[in-house]
């Protein structure tokens, strides 16, 4: 029997990994990946708890919404990254400190 706790532990580990990536990586695309990992960790929890709502499927539906939003977010984020790269010739967030150019 797979318990909820099992899912949550996996989700936590996944979340922490994403966190680590976000904080430590010097590459905007990897940071984006980190964000996706964290989102997925959250979605995993939604899905895992969604098992206990057979009628309304709220967990699964919100997982779906989250996935879709993540996709949108990613698209925008990538566009931003591209632009930043054009501007600064780097995608290292440490070197992008100025709000204006």
């Amino acid at each position: 029997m797979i318990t909820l706790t099992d899912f949550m532990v996996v989700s936590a580990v996944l979340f922490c990994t994403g966190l680590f990536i976000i904080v430590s990586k010097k590459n905007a695309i990897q940071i984006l990946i980190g964000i996706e990992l964290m989102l997925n960790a959250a979605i995993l929890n939604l899905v895992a708890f969604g098992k206990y709502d057979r009628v309304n499927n709220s967990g699964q539906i919100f997982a779906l919404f989250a996935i879709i939003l993540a996709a949108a977010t990613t698209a925008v984020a990538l566009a931003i990254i591209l632009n930043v790269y054009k501007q600064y010739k780097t995608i290292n967030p440490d070197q992008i400190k100025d709000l204006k150019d």
Partner: protein
Amino acid sequence: MKEAILPQELQTIYLTILIVLLPFAAFILNFLFLNKSKASGWVSTIAILISSIFSIFVFTAIWNGPVIHVQTIWFTIGDSQVHAGLLLNNLSVLMLALVPLVALPVHIYSTAYMKDDAGYGRYFRYLSFFCFSMLALVVVDNLVLFYAFWELVGFASYLLIGFWFDRPAAVQANKKAFIMNRIGDIGLLTAIIIIYTLFGTFDLEKLFGAEGFVTRYSYIENGTWSFYLNHVLHVPVSRGWTVMAPHTVTQIPAIWQYVAFGGIFLGVAAKSAQFPLHTWLPDAMEGPTSVSALIHAATMVAAGVFLLGRVYPMFNTTELNILAAVGCFTAFMAATIALTQTDLKRILAYSTISQLGYMVMAMGIGAYASSLFHLVTHAFFKCLLFLCAGIVIHQIKHVKEDNHLDIDPQDLANMGGLRKKLPVTFVATLIAGLALIGLPLTSGYLSKEGILVQAFEWAELKGGAFMLIPVFASITSWLTAFYVARMILKVFYGDMNLSKLYPNITIHIGDGGWRYQLPLIMLALCSLFPLFSLNPLAHSGWLTGGLPQYGQYTAGLVELMVPVIINVGSIAMLYYAYMAYIKQRDKVAAQPSLLHRISFNEWYIDAFYQRVIVRAVMTFSKALYWFDLKVIDGLVNLFERIARCIAGAAAWFDKYIVDGLLHLAAALVAYIGGIARRFQNGKVQYYLFSMLLAVIVVFILKILIWNS
């Protein structure tokens, strides 16, 4: 003071004022209008000519007649009124006549003597100014004015000594003359102040007249000098002051009487070149010779003796003895110096000092009249001697300039044998020289023998060491004979030394025109006996009759013996000198001897002043300036530095303690700010990291600590 002035007196007064003011008018005229013009000489000469004529009128009117004393208020200071006025008595009219009579020939002589000088106008300006001051000096009636003109004649002398102001020696000499005279001046000033304090007036007649305060109403007793006021003075009772009742005694300590005497003595010593203030006079010969003749031989230097004559009643016996001693010593010392000098004018200068010593001595022994008589005769013959010397020097200078020689025209070594070239000058010099020696038939005999006779009589009365004074006076007289002979022989006899030294030179010299000869003749006539006494062998003249005698003498053998001894001695000296210098029989006073050196170096007095006194004063003043700069100013600067130290400490405290706290707080804030700033570094991840850190800290606190 007289209430009413008689008409004939009024005329005399006006004449006197004219006599005094004419030279002044000439001075002003020359000063303002005739700056460069040759006319200035004639303006001055005519002024003095008129003055001389008037002065004879005044002289005849006053001599042995009534004393005229008029005055007007000059200014009021406090309750004392200072007057300006004239006092004409025998003494002042004597001088009033003498000065223009001597000045006239000198003026005439000067028009020729100075004619080629660039400062011709200036010269006559000064000369007129001198005459004015000198004439005013003799007629003023109070001590303040007396002092004023006393100093003005010194000033005129200063100007004339330094007439050639581009010659360093001349300006050194005039500085010296003025400063030495200043020493005398402050002495005189002190004396005047003392007299004023005691008697409350400056009036000469009131003080020293026959019924004067000094003469009649003052005495020294129990260590105080008292003024017994037995008639009412004008006292401003209305002001509520201490009322000076009649019969009040004013007193000051007796010592101040001696100080007053000392002050007057200093004044006399400075003006009349008495030891110890005589050293300026030989140096003053740097001025034009005509000036030396007028000022430094005849008139101004006699002012000291005149002053003694004015304030004579003030002196007590001790003081008179001091005067006699100093006069005698000066006469002797100056005569010894004159023996060896090689500069023609210096010989005459020391001779003047010596003769002035005679006069002061005569005052000291009470031969008041003889002293002034000698003053008068001396004025004529010494002036004559100087004028002759001027001609000699002038001619030698011509030779020098004609032949471009490098010689000192005043040096005796460059003269000799001038008898034939300058006959008139020679005769005049001879007359004046004999008068100076005091041989019979000259005026000098009349006055000098009078002094000597009285000196012996005076000493006889006193006895003891006082005998030294007439003895030395006699020796001086013989020394005078010797140096006069030496001078005349060296200048006029023998061969022309210059033509020996420089065989190729041409010598065109002569007595010069009438402007040279007339003054010589005038003065030579005045140096002979008839002007003063019809008896050529008397030792007094009509002049002495008009002046008071203070000494008491026993007419006796002395009166007969002294002139004989003195004259025989003098003639012996003349013969000795003739033998020595003309016949070359005997080398007098072997050159390198100690006595010769002392004499030649003027007893080292001047050197002593220069080395010791002047240097001491200068060192002292330098030291004082050092003191001022280092100590007083240093103290000020020290205060400043202390203040600055305190200020520095305060500033330090302010900076590091007071401000330090502030800075510490600020630095703390800045540090914290710096830390906080580091968060705001624009690094997104850093923000995130810190945020998460905060979250985790909250979590840890919340979960691990609070809940456990």
